[in-house]
């Protein structure tokens, strides 16, 4: 997925429909991330000013949630579920095999790809599960995940 580069004007446009939302900070951050693929540092001040909350409040929310990111995402994304139901059908072994095949470590960031631990996609009867570039994969194998 490709995103436009950060611009304060575009971000202002993204935020303007949210003016009347009650409790807007998380929604505002999600909207910025949806538009630009991440939350640029200048978005913090913009959101604080737009909704009349402190920068500390916005920063607090931004750093609390796993989904929110402060740098652009690599082009490719692999998330492997490592929660209990997937562990029972070999997600630990899957992670090791994917790391070996790609020569990369889980939960570390690379320029071209991101391999992350995930905690449940609700596909627990067809595990191990993975999400590859936004697509849910059941009965995941090294081949399916790295295809």
């Amino acid at each position, binding site marked *: 997925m490709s995103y436009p580069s950060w611009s304060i004007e575009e971000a202002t446009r993204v935020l303007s429909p949210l003016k009347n939302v009650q409790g807007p*900070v998380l929604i505002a951050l999600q909207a910025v991330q949806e538009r630009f693929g991440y939350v640029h540092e200048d978005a913090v001040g913009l959101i604080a000013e737009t909704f009349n909350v402190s920068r500390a409040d916005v920063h607090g929310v931004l750093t609390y949630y796993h*989904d929110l990111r402060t740098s652009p995402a690599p082009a490719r994304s692999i998330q492997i579920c490592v929660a209990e139901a997937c562990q029972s059908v070999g997600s630990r072994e899957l992670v090791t095999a994917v790391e070996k095949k790609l020569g990369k470590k889980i939960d570390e960031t690379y320029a071209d790809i991101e391999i992350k631990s995930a905690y449940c996609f*609700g596909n*627990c*009867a067809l595990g191990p599960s993975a999400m590859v570039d936004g697509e*849910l994969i059941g009965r995941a194998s090294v081949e399916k995940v790295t295809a």
Partner: protein
Amino acid sequence: MSTVIYVPNDSAAISIGADQVAALIAQEAVKRSLDVTIIRNGTRGALWLETLVEVLTSQGRIAYGPVQPEDVSSLFDSDFLQGGAHKLSLGLTEEIAWFAGQDRVTYKRVGLIDPLSLKDYEAHGGLVGLRKAITQNGSEIVAEVTASGLRGRGGAGFPAGIKWKTVLDAPADQKYVCCNADEGDSGTFADRILIEADPFTLIEGMAIAAVAVGATQGFVYLRSEYPTAITRMRDAIAIAEKAGVLGSSVLGSKHAFNLEVRVGAGSYVCGEETAMLESLEGKRGVIRSKPPLPAIAGLFGKPTIINNVLTLASVPAVIADGAAAYAARGTGRSLGTQVFQLAGNIARGGVIETAFGITLETLVHTFGGGTLSGKPLRAVQIGGPLGAYFNSSHLGVSMDYESLAAAGGMLGHGGVVLFDDSVDLAQQAKFAMEFCALESCGKCTPCRLGSTRGAETIQKIISGVDVPANKLLLLDLCDVMTDGSLCAMGGLTPLPVKSAMNNFPEDFTGGAKK
């Protein structure tokens, strides 16, 4: 005449190829000049049979599964459009033992209908409850829900009617109904399937709750890991608004009710109701102390009904068919049905709705068929990451709130995860602590710091360092977490840890492998 074929559009089914199967059926039909109508229904819940293709015949729906993309051409060769014999033929769907043994109430329409067809929904008994509710006053509806014995399906098991009565009796200019669809427990997916397969049931349940207590605004807090459910829910709300089920006049009544989906941002603890409220208010998902109860001062400080998806989705049936019909099912103080989810290392995984009181043995073996790997079953975790690990001596336990508590566990959201004999319970216990460390909101010290110390201590036990002393220390830490944490995150993380130690002591002997 066009032949109707059902191919699920559930995200689990799609994860193993349902979209390809649907596309290939359409292509093959064109190639063979056959007139077919493909309906993308929700899953029937037998995820082990996905992709489950059904053909509507004069006898009823005939099932084929699990269908792989490469099977499609041979299905046509076998004349499956007339219900022809094929190696994947399962006969009439209703007669498959796995379905026939269930008692579907909350899941009555799941998998039967096109999820976004309001016409299908009404043809299968939808909106009967809401139509009845708008003719009743709030106390009548609340009394019905109370009499049904319906309890919170999110995990705590609190009686829904009592919660609703508190909100009904709280004077306020604004009240809310919030649906907790932050289904973060590993091994659970019943909320997701309900929303993807039959979203109008949830809308109807929430509307009944709103009409009962005088709430005019509702929110569905849905986790970001469920993109298909988010889209489906939003589409269903738009359709319901257009049809006048939601909006300024619910089904032409004096009641207004608007509904909005708010998407989570990857925080497990936001499934705890007060953390969810904070998140709905756009803040960090840090839990609140209670009191005040959310029923008195909840979202934006106003009286708020918070219920899980399955609780609210059970309400239409309770109102439509009456409290007595619902309460006739179940056992003791666990009345009605529970939507169990069979997951993990299981041969026949999926959703089993049945009255409370079924044994774990029946769920795991009769329905589940044992482990997927074929190796001996060693452990079963019930109730998600905060639930207990049981060994095979517990298979006789009755699946209801009280019996599971008496056995040292909890029902939670009804997830049942199987592990074969390759599992190492010390590793599972360590994972429970690590998950708590990762997801703790940080408010309570025993949870925030204790979880990290707990994982370290279990690692010491695994490595054989001073094992008896570290086991004692771990048990002491578990007590501090249980007693010193405000919510279930820190309070119940000791449950998987201690149950693993109690039920599988041989895994905690420090290096000496079994």
